[in-house]
């Protein structure tokens, strides 16, 4: 299925990309993260397990087990620091 991936803040800078359309075979957010790590070494480094990364599915913070759906938007970003 096709999904939109977004990256913000330090993750966006590290990967040199803010968003992209992605054809995925993953069923959930955790699988998608693993799948993206295979794209390029810089993705493997930035998204490695243990990195402080938060994920939002369709603009709501979600757990790793959240299920993907056709056309959904998945955003990866570091802890938030507004206010």
């Amino acid at each position, binding site marked *: 299925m096709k999904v939109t991936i977004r990256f913000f803040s330090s993750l966006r800078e590290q990967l040199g990309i803010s968003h992209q359309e992605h054809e995925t075979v993953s069923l959930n957010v955790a699988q998608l993260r693993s799948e993206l790590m295979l794209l390029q070494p810089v993705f493997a480094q930035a998204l490695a397990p243990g990195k402080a990364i938060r994920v*939002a599915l369709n603009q709501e913070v979600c757990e790793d087990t959240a299920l993907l759906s056709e056309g959904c938007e998945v955003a990866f*970003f570091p*802890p*938030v620091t*507004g*206010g």
Partner: protein
Amino acid sequence: MSFTVAIQTQDFDVSHEVQALRSGRADVGAVCVFVGTVRDRNDGDNVSTLELEHYPGMTEKSIQRMLNEAQQRFEMISAKVIHRVGILNPLDQIVLVAVTSAHRGQSFQACEFLMDYLKTQAPFWKKETGPNGSHWVDARISDDQALARWGIQTKNALPK
């Protein structure tokens, strides 16, 4: 009743915002306003500029959700949240939370709740620039703890 959010690059006028919240509402007996501003030092480093990035769409939704949550908890009459994004400098205003209620207690509490919520739940990221270059600001455990006082557990600042 008005509970609104604005994400903007331009500055805001506190007295104008308070006037708008109070306008025609003789049941308002208390207005509580919090304004966050840019410091010239953070964690011992000099700060010359502060850049604020956000997640358009999710930001507005998450703040609207927090206003809904605040309405469940406190007797608010109206509220306004403004958060600036883009490049800011020391002395600039960053964020406004303004709340009205009949009596002061509810406004004070709602205002603090909204700021505690915003710090760890709204998708903003700060990047500081100083004499030694730029870096992204780290999330603080103390902000997670501030929200926990309201019975909301968050793991925003956890290292993984």
